[in-house]
C-alpha cells in the first residue's frame, strides 16, 4: 500500500454550487508551514468575484426565505458532513497552520462544534432579537430580524478553518448569502469546506469561496453595489481603511477588522450575527 502513488486533489473555486477554475486561468502555489508544495490553488480574479456576487444574489431569495427550522437543519447537516471529513480537515489544518496532529484535531473539533452552535441559532434569532412594540395607539407593531443580503467576507488569514467557520457560519445562520475570500496562504481547508457544502443540503450560490488575494479582490467586493455588507476581518494589513471607504459608496454595513486576529476558540457571542441582520418593523391597525 505504501508504494501506491497518491491521487492528488485539484483545488478550485467554489461558486454557485460548482467548482470552476478561475476565469483568469491563474493559479498560485500553496505550501505547508515549512514551505513544501501542497497544491496549486485557483487564483480568483475580480471577474470570479463578480460571478460569485451574482450567484450569491441569486441564491438569497430562497435561502433567506427558507424557514429558520429548515435552515438550522441544513446547517446542522453541514456539521455532520464536516465530521465525516474530519481526518482530511485535520491533515490540511496541520499542514497549512503547522500544527501538531493533536492541536489540529482540537481545531477541527472546535470548528465542527462552532458550526453546530450557529446551526442552533437560526430559529432563536427572531425570538431573541425581535420585539412586539407597545406603541401608543391602536396598532400591532412588531420588529423582526432579517438578513442583510449578500455579505462579502474577507476570511481570517491565519486560522484557515476555525477562523473561517467562525466568520462564515454566523453570516449564514441569519439567512445571508456569502462571498468569501479565503486565507491567501492557507486556502485548502476552505475548498474542502466547499466540498462539504456542495454535498450537504446548502443550495448552490449560498456560499461562494474564492481562493486568492483579499488585497486584490477585496476592493472589487467593497465597491460592488450589489454587495450589502462586508466583513473586513481578513483584510490585509493596512488595507482596511481603503476598503471601508470604498464600502461607504453604497452604504454597506462594515465589520471592521480587529487589531489582530482574535483567539477563535473564545465564546463568539451573537455580535457576528447581529452585525449582518436588519430590523424590519411592521405596523398594522387593530380594529373590527
Amino acid at each position, binding site marked *: 500500500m505504501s508504494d501506491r502513488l497518491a491521487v492528488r486533489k485539484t483545488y478550485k473555486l467554489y461558486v454557485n454550487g460548482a467548482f470552476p477554475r478561475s476565469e483568469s486561468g491563474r493559479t498560485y502555489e500553496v505550501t505547508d508551514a515549512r514551505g513544501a508544495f501542497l497544491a496549486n490553488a485557483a487564483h480568483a480574479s475580480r471577474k470570479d468575484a463578480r460571478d460569485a456576487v451574482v450567484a450569491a444574489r441569486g441564491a438569497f431569495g430562497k435561502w433567506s426565505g427558507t424557514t429558520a427550522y429548515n435552515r438550522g437543519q441544513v446547517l446542522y447537516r453541514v456539521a455532520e458532513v464536516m465530521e465525516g471529513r474530519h481526518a482530511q480537515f485535520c491533515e490540511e489544518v496541520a499542514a497549512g497552520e503547522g500544527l501538531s496532529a493533536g492541536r489540529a484535531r482540537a481545531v477541527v473539533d472546535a470548528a465542527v462544534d462552532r458550526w453546530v452552535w450557529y446551526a442552533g441559532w437560526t430559529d432563536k434569532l427572531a425570538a431573541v432579537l425581535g420585539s412586539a412594540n407597545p406603541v401608543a*395607539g*391602536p*396598532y400591532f407593531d412588531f420588529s423582526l430580524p432579517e438578513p442583510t443580503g449578500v455579505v462579502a467576507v474577507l476570511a481570517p488569514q491565519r486560522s484557515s478553518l476555525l477562523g473561517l467557520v467562525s466568520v462564515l457560519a454566523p453570516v449564514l445562520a441569519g439567512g445571508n448569502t456569502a462571498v468569501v475570500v479565503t486565507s491567501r496562504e492557507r486556502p485548502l481547508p476552505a475548498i474542502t469546506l466547499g466540498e462539504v457544502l456542495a454535498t450537504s443540503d446548502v443550495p448552490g450560490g449560498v456560499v461562494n469561496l474564492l481562493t486568492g488575494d483579499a488585497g486584490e479582490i477585496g476592493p472589487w467586493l467593497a465597491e460592488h453595489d450589489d454587495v450589502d455588507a462586508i466583513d473586513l476581518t481578513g483584510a490585509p494589513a493596512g488595507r482596511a481603511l481603503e476598503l471601508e471607504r470604498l464600502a461607504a459608496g453604497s452604504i454597506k454595513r462594515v465589520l471592521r477588522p480587529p487589531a489582530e486576529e482574535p483567539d477563535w476558540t473564545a465564546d463568539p457571542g451573537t455580535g457576528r450575527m447581529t452585525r449582518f441582520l436588519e430590523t424590519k418593523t411592521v405596523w398594522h*391597525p*387593530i*380594529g*373590527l
Partner: protein
Amino acid sequence: MTHVLDPGTLEAGTRPAPGSGAPFDDVTRSDAALRAFLHGLPGVDQVGAEQRAATLGTRSIKTTAKAWAIDTAISMVDLTTLEGADTPGKVRSLAAKARRPDPTDTTAPAVAAVCVYGDLAGVAVEALEGSGIHVAAVATAFPSGRASREVKLADVRDAVGNGADEIDMVIDRGAFLSGRYLEVFDEIVAVKRECGDAHLKVILETGELVTYDNARRASWLAMLAGADFIKTSTGKVSPAATLPVCLVMLEAVRDFRAATGRQVGVKPAGGIRTTKDALKHLVLVNETVGADWLSPDWFRFGASSLLNDLLLQRQKLRTGHYGGPDHVSID
C-alpha cells in the same frame, strides 16, 4: 371585485337616468346577489376611519365661518322628542321653539323639522302650519323594529295619515345581522311605497350593527331600496351618532351618487349635544361630500338639547360674552 363605485365601468347603455338606482337592479334579484354585492363593497378600516374623523375634528372654525356654521346647523336640526311621556302640549311647545328658536333674536333661523312619534304628528302639523317646517314621524315599531311587517306598515300609514311629510323608519337589525339582506331590502321598499310623497329616512341603528363595514353595507342597502335619507340611530342605543360612522355614511352617499346619479341625505342622530359636535359634523360634510350636502335638504341633525347650545353660542358670537342656560328656553 366589482368596482361598483366607478360609474365609468358601467356599460354605456346601462348608464342610469338620474334619480334611479337602475344600474344595481340586478343586485337585488336574490339574497345571494345582494349579499355578494354588499360584501363586495370596499372594506372600512376602523382605525383609519376614526383617525380621519378625528383629524377633521381638529379643524378650527372661527368668526364668520362659525357664525355661518351655527346658523346652518340650526336650520338642519330635526328638533326631536321621542319620549313615552310626550303629550300634545310638549309637542306644541317644541313646535313653537322650532319656529322661533331664540325668542330674543328673530334673526335666528328656524329648524328643519320637528320629529315626534306618529300619533302626535297631527299635533305637530297643526302647530307648524305655514312655517315650512317639516314634520317627521318615527315609525315601523320604532325604536326596536320588532313587530310584524303589517304592523310596521300600518304604523307608517298612520303617521302619513296624520300629516307627517317625513318618515323615520328603523331597519330590521336582526335580519341584517343574520344576513337576510333581501328581507331588510324588501321591507324598506314596502315602507317607501307606504310613504307616498313623504320623505323616507332609514335608520340603520349603527350602534347595533357595530362595525363600519356593516354601516357601509346597510347604507348601500337602504339607498338601493329607495331611502331619501340614511340616518345613524334611534337615539335609544349607545353609541348613537359618532363622527366616524357619519364619515362612512357620507362616503356611501357620495359614492352612490357617483354611481347612480341620485343624491341621498344623511342624518346623524343621538349624542350630538354641543355646537362643537355639530361643527365637526359640518366640517365632515364639507370635506367628504362637499357643498352639495350643506343644506337641510341633504343633511340633518337629529337632536334635542343641541339646539340650545347652538343658540347660546350664537348669542356669544353676537354679544361677545357668554350666556347661561337661563338665556335659552327649556322646552
